[in-house]
């Protein structure tokens, strides 16, 4: 597990670390390669789910319920006789898609608000930072669970809930970066050249500060996948019978004494996914940090 605040701290540490790290070719970057391979394979599995999954993830065969592992069902079947491997494969599609998409809205909203607050400063900045403080008081899961409750469970509510909670981190990061960037010579020069604030913010400052938000976004995807899996486990996520890792763990917990693998394996898949994405994020942070080019 990780927390938004812990992620912000880790993000800063990585940022400091990258300043001193020597320049490496991207393909020699171990964590980037490991992350790319694991994440790439998972995405491939998700995309190819209709082709490679041996069975339908939702069709029930009640006569084959709770089968042990066998050549026909490599990971056995669940209480409705559905093939566990097929459900894992189709689950990758759901969990990865929601994880990646959920990051986009808070990324855009947070970056825009943080950028404006940092650039213009003054009362706008004060008000926005107060709002950020208020949102930080609500623990991630509490807020997400309450919002999913309000909007009803389902994919759309998950996007709204995650967006409402995580925009604050992007706003904080981008604001901090803009505060540094706006004092740089190139911004002063652009201003003297008569450019509008909007153009400076979008064309000049934007590209220089967004890399940090993108790097944070990579660890945020891990966090969002954890949230989706947790909501699925609590029965508040993607509605059944859709295959989803969290609800698979919940289904498996019922049979923990007799079929321990039913709850164990989907969790292991989540661990591998988050390791892959974390490594990818670390690797990207090496690659994208502008300090590297000095």
């Amino acid at each position, binding site marked *: 597990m990780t927390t938004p605040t812990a992620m912000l701290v880790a993000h800063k540490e990585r940022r400091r670390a990258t300043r001193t790290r020597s320049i490496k070719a991207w393909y020699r970057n171990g964590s980037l390669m490991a992350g790319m391979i694991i994440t790439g394979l998972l995405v491939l599995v998700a995309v190819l789910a209709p082709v490679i999954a041996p069975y339908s993830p939702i069709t029930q065969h009640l006569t084959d319920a709770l089968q042990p592992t066998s050549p026909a069902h490599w990971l056995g079947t669940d209480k409705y006789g559905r093939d566990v491997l097929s459900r894992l494969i189709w689950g990758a599609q759901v969990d990865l898609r929601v994880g990646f998409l959920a990051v986009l809205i808070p990324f855009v909203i947070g970056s825009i608000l943080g950028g404006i607050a940092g650039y213009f400063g003054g009362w706008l900045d004060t008000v926005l930072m107060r709002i950020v403080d*208020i*949102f930080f008081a609500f*623990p991630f899961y509490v807020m997400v669970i*309450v919002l999913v409750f309000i*909007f009803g469970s389902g994919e759309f509510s998950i996007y709204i809930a995650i967006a409402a909670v995580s925009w604050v981190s992007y706003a904080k990061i981008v604001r901090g970066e803009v505060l540094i960037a706006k004092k740089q010579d190139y911004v002063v020069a652009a201003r003297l050249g008569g450019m509008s604030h909007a153009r400076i913010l979008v064309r000049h400052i934007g590209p220089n500060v967004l890399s940090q938000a993108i790097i944070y976004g990579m660890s945020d995807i891990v966090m969002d996948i954890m949230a989706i899996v947790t909501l699925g486990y*609590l029965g508040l996520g993607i509605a059944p019978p859709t295959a989803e890792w969290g609800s698979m763990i919940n289904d498996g917990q019922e049979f923990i004494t007799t079929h321990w693998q039913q709850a164990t394996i989907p969790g292991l898949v989540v661990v*591998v996914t988050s390791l892959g994405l974390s490594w990818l994020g670390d690797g990207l942070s090496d690659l994208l940090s502008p300090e590297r080019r000095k």
Partner: protein
Amino acid sequence: MLHRLRFIPGRLVQSIPVAFGVTLIVFFMARLLPGNAALAILGQQANAASVAALSKQLGLNQPLWEQYFLFIGRLFQGNLGTSLTYQIPVSELLSQAIPVTLSLLGLALLLALVISVPLAALAAFRPGSPRDLGVRAFTLLGQGMPQFWLGIMLILLLAIGVPLFPVGGYGNSPADHPYYLFLPSLTLAIAMCPTIIRSLRSSMIDVLGSDYVGTARSKGSYGAALFRGHVLRNAAIPTVSVIGVNLGFLVGGSLVIEKVFALPGLGSIMINAIFTRDFPTVQGVTLFVALFVVVVGILTDVVYTMLDPRVDLSGKENA
């Protein structure tokens, strides 16, 4: 000592807008429910009389700002409304659950420190060594695991595989509680560890490289004495604030863990309330948790000041 705590009144005043913001958000949550909030809470098949009664209880017929002041007014009287499911005051439900959640958090924090301090020290004394890498692998894995799944795995290993601990529940007598709380606390502790270890390790490395540790070493201090006397307290300072800011998130995590271990704390109440659409209870738990986070923020600053005499939060630049 006491003069360093001058900042507390100012810090409290600073927290007031945040606390009000929190109540405002919790208040507007009810307005976000689609359609008539009373109808949304009671369900479509509710009869007109009960909808009217709940509308009156929620004050839905008055202007919004008046409703908010009503809400705040009740709040100051400790009135969080009545649970729709249990028909008892929400505050009563909370007062039964809060001790459970707080003991879970307390024990988890204790266990987390017991695990983290030695591991961080192992890693920090030889950065880059195999044992440092081992600790890093542990933190990486700890971060990658969904908390509730870790809980299930601990049940599988330590309650079913080797039946050392109960599978769930809170026990019947107060003497049983710590025994029943151990596995859930361990789960939460392992989830907390990566953050604490990472912070402690990096500050220990900083401290170990400092002049005063060099001086202590040259005077013949080494091993445990050096660690206790010079390293730990100084390295603990940044970690205190790391724990403080993350404690709020851990409250959120503990709510999910309670569901795994069937503990009758705030999380179980909240999740049950969500399934029974018991909105006043959901609102009450949310409000309590958010205000708890604000208070923990203040306490963190107090501990921070006590640990590090150089920190003076009463100064204007820190306000």
